[in-house]
């Protein structure tokens, strides 16, 4: 099932004009605050009526301003998870979870037991929302949305209100959700690391417009989008790798298409596929394979694109086998090395530069 979205709306001092598709899998809607992400979610859920727009979901038209169609929220069957969990305070966790099921036209879909199991909320069922932690509440909110048998799940910054520890607690559940359900998921976030861990494709919003759409690895390694993707410090790329060996000295060897990559111990079985986010500022570029250097990871690459920044920096997009890698270096280095598109180089990466939170399981490709 695919959702097609096209929206135009004028706010005071801000115009929203977007069009994009949400295919199966996880699609991230990415952009800084004020880029229009929340308005898009509101319009999808039917909580806001845009000036013009059309939203269709698997052949059903939810909104078409030209035809004067605008289904009310309760007839759209879009499961919403909000930044604030919005649980019903007067109901128990179990009653919260079953609320949407009661109104759902078809009683099939995911089973109650499966959702409770997947989100690890079985011990909470008899409790009331006020007695739960932020992370637990958000898991219940996700379960509640899922159990309403939605045709699509829209998650509006579900982790934004949580601290780092709670985010880390929920992330694996979101990965389960992605891998175990067939429902398309629109995941709104301004966190590059959340999106690189979860999403297959990404829609980048900026100032009310779609700047780029495409697979996560491709979009995030586009040097021209760096200013929109949280700036140079947030810039980074995603590569996929397989766990090859757990070495005795606490390092894990990952195999990429371009060669081996050693990282501090990754808790995953041998053979497991992983996605690793590599920040652009942790990548160095050398013309010859460096010798006598502490960095363990030296991979042959090719320059694909080069973008000089407004300041002293430059973004270099490299191709390693099938993967794209982003390196942030100074313009002076770029000139001294004589970097040009097509030049063969070596990408150098310190093993300890990759944070554990930047490693996750890739989506199971359908």
């Amino acid at each position, binding site marked *: 099932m695919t959702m097609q979205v096209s929206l135009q709306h004028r706010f005071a001092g801000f115009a929203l004009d977007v069009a994009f598709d949400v295919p199966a899998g996880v699609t991230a809607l990415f952009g800084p605050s004020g880029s229009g992400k929340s308005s898009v979610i509101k319009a999808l859920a039917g*909580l806001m009526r845009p000036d013009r727009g059309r939203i269709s979901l698997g052949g059903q038209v939810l909104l078409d301003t030209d035809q004067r169609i605008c289904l009310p929220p*309760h007839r759209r069957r879009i499961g919403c998870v909000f930044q604030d969990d919005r649980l019903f305070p007067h109901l128990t966790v179990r009653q919260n979870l079953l609320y949407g099921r009661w109104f759902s036209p078809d009683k099939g879909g995911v089973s109650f037991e499966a959702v409770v199991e997947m989100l690890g909320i079985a011990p909470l069922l008899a409790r009331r929302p006020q007695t739960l932690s932020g992370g637990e509440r958000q898991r219940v909110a996700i379960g509640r*949305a899922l159990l309403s048998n939605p045709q699509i799940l829209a998650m509006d910054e579900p982790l934004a209100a949580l601290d780092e520890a709670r985010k880390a607690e929920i992330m694996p559940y979101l990965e389960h959700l992605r891998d175990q359900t067939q429902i398309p998921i629109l995941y709104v976030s301004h966190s590059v690391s959340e999106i690189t861990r979860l999403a297959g494709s990404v829609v980048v919003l900026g100032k009310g417009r779609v700047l780029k759409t495409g697979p996560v690895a491709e979009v995030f390694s586009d040097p021209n989008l760096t200013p929109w993707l949280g700036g140079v410090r947030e810039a980074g790329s995603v590569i996929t790798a397989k766990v090859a060996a757990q070495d005795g000295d606490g390092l894990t060897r990952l195999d990429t298409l371009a060669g081996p990559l050693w990282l501090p111990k990754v808790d995953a079985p041998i053979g497991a596929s992983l996605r690793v986010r590599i920040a652009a500022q942790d990548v160095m570029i050398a013309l010859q394979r460096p010798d006598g250097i502490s960095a363990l990871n030296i991979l042959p690459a090719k320059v694909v694109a080069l973008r000089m920044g407004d300041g002293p920096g430059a973004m270099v997009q490299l191709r390693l086998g099938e993967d794209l890698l982003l390196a942030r270096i100074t313009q002076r280095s770029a000139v001294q090395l004589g970097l040009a598109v097509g030049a063969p180089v070596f990408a150098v990466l310190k093993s300890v530069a990759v944070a554990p939170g930047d490693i996750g399981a890739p989506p199971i490709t359908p």
Partner: protein
Amino acid sequence: MPDWFSPDEWRAIALSLRVSAWATAVSLPLGVLVAFVLARRQFWGKQVLNGLVHLPLILPPVVTGYLLLLAFGRKGLVGQYLDMIGVVLAFQWTGAVLAAAVMAFPLMVRAIRLSVEAVDARVEQAAGTLGASPPWVFATVTLPLILPGIIVGSVLAFAKAMGEFGATITFVANIPGQTQTLPSAIYAFLQVPDGDGQAFRLVMVSIFVAMAALALSEWAAKAVARRISGA
């Protein structure tokens, strides 16, 4: 127990309880609706509605009673049409219900309106996205969440109706067994020599009912609030 009171006193007590119960029950649905509209909706004339609701609180009760007589008397604006279909309110116990309901209405609406304003509208939106139509959202989310306000508003209205005097005596007079409520009876006993003893007994009843109503509303509202907050 009945021999504690003379038949006259007993009639007044029973009538007051009946009038107050009816006044509360009849005005409750309208009270919830008006409170909801005032708390949530923006519309032309909102301040007029708000003023009308609150008018009985500030007007002298005798004025409210007289206005009721003008409107609902047998020749009144509305009364003449009610008369045609056989409904007479003036000088009937049903008229006492109307007077008590009108006088108690502002208290009821204020209490319920406060609780509606305390409900997080985003939680109601969430219920909508889960497939609940607006009437269902109201029944399954809004109503349970404003229950403490409804209880407090109802009890306040009941207590106010028990004590209503000015508008009632103006609109429906003071007919023993018909329209002589507790306060009217106290007033009547005080007008006759040696009536002090009877008046005092009814005063005690009034105080008891008022205290019991307040205690009940506090207890019920707390119990419901505890259930909602889950503490």
